[in-house]
């Protein structure tokens, strides 16, 4: 019984982490309709920036996290201005090819600079170990992940729903032409959103080094997970991807614990079944853009 709760807890932490990693993709892929397979590369960049700062420069872990965000966001905004924005109107095939190219480049470049072995980030001693909560073992690090990601999610929802920027973004996504006619600087909104999504991925990458493992093949290994979150979650709001990542996290942890022999089989089957059942995702809107 307690193992059930511990698994549930781990699954929720994992799902929250996946959401932070993938919610940038939910905007580019789900809302802007740009197939960006290279999203994991930004997460990896954030993870490695944090690893270098904490392990080699001796920065405290909690100072490394914001810098991971900033570094990935900067890389994101530069790439968006230089490369991505030319491809918004191209065919999906072009977008797929381009982003696969970016993934290959990032994998090889990180392999060259940092080596191919797995990297660990030194976490503060206060975050190690477990807390015993009514007999349920709760990992402190995972608890921190839930807290950080929960706050981020609530913040995101508020920004999207309540602020002027949020309404500009929703307008720009719904109808870019009408939005620019109303004086909204659509390319700027997209660039900022893209950068912010990349920054979140970078933060997620830094957080996930402890849980998912960080090596140069990170973008390839987790590409499918990010895509599942977005396609299964649909693109109507961030609630869909959020629920989808929780579902995915819990299903993956439970699958690995209770039926370890089946491995990732469970996840892929669920994904294919859901996509057959509802091609626009579980929480998608009816008309696709």
């Amino acid at each position, binding site marked *: 019984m307690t193992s059930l709760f511990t698994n549930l807890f781990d699954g929720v932490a994992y799902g929250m982490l996946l959401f932070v990693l993938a919610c940038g993709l939910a905007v580019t892929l789900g809302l802007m309709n740009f197939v960006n397979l290279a999203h994991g590369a930004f997460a990896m960049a954030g993870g490695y920036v944090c690893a270098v700062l904490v392990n080699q420069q001796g920065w405290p872990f909690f100072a490394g996290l914001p810098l991971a965000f900033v570094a990935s966001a900067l890389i994101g905004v530069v790439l968006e201005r230089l490369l991505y924005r030319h491809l918004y109107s191209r065919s999906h095939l072009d977008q797929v*090819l381009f982003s696969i190219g970016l993934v290959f480049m990032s994998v090889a470049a990180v392999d060259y600079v940092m080596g191919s072995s797995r990297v660990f980030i030194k976490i503060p001693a206060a975050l190690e170990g477990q807390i015993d909560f009514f007999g349920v073992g709760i990992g402190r690090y995972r608890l921190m992940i839930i807290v950080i990601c929960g706050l981020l999610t609530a913040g995101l929802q508020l920004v999207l729903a309540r602020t002027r920027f949020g309404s500009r973004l929703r307008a720009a996504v719904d109808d870019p032409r009408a939005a620019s006619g109303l004086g909204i600087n659509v390319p700027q909104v997209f660039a900022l959103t893209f950068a912010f999504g990349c920054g979140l991925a970078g933060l997620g990458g830094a957080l996930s080094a402890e849980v998912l493992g960080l090596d140069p093949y990170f973008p390839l290994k987790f590409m499918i997970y990010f895509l599942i979150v977005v396609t299964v979650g649909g693109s109507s709001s961030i609630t869909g991807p959020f629920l989808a990542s929780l579902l995915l996290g819990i299903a993956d942890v439970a699958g690995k614990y209770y039926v370890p022999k089946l491995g990732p089989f469970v996840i892929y089957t669920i994904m294919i079944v859901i996509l057959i059942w509802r091609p626009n995702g579980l929480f998608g809107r009816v008309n696709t853009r």
Partner: protein
Amino acid sequence: MTAQAEVGYHARQHGRWHWSEAACWILALACALMFPSRYLIMTEVVRLALFALSLDLILGYAGIVSLGHAAFFGVGAYSAGLMALHGLVTEPVGALVLSGLVAMALGFVTSFLVIRGADLTRLMVTLGIALLLEALAERFSDITGGTDGLQGIEIEPILGLFGFDMFGKVGFFYSLAVLFVLFLLARRIVHSPFGLSLRAIRNNPLRAAAIGIPVNRRLIAVYTLAAFYAGVAGALFTQTTALASLDVFAFERSADLMLVLVIGGTGYLYGGLIGAVVFRMLQEVFSTLTPQYWQFWIGLVLVVIVMVGRQRLHRWVLWAPNLIIRQFGGRKAVVAVPESEAP
């Protein structure tokens, strides 16, 4: 001439053999005689060309973007390997066809999943199927050998006459023959009314449906056919290397395949062939430059191709040959890559 007769006339004209096509195949044969020490690498090119031909059928002609074409390659590879290992079908040609048929069956079943949904769902479903098969192959390691792959495969002589040799000579001619036969078949298919209807679907599915083309049935048919081709390519892989391991399902294989096709150009049959040659040469150059990091350069090539634009790139490449042809033949541009605006 009535309009219908005119359409038929032009379609037949397109379907005719051009002298440059014959030259291309003679060149391929000449390569075999010119570089007897490079059989292994040339076999690889031929296999890749066949695999690319398979993707071209669905991507270039029917406009289905697939990220998991390696699934069929892998199924073909493992079926050929298992058949040889357990002595079910020992004769390579028979095993080749059977492996193709196994992949074809899988293609038929999964095609129903693929035709549902738009581009993005297709990408995910094809990718998911390839990953699923990889996970299955890893899981049932008592059948597939798990991460070690199938070991101790011995391939009998082809038709009981030609045994595979160390230098890959027989393997190369065998692969080339298979490629040629399947190429002829593909050529016949894409120039048939069926092939023309596929192109109509690619350009505009809605319009194609409006003029009475059964869109879904055509897509299922071509997806199944492409799965057969990919399965045969996979079986060739196992038979010429006596090896089948988990990486036949790898995502990189599907991604590289897309690059091959994009280099060569989608939507015409020689695209895969040319792409395979160029890709292998690029790979060779990059791995001599930086042995461990050649993927970086492959990625860079992809990014550059997309940024420059595929059509513009093909125009640049064809500029010189077309100039020469125009000088001597006095005709309009003879070599052109017929690529639609939205594959």
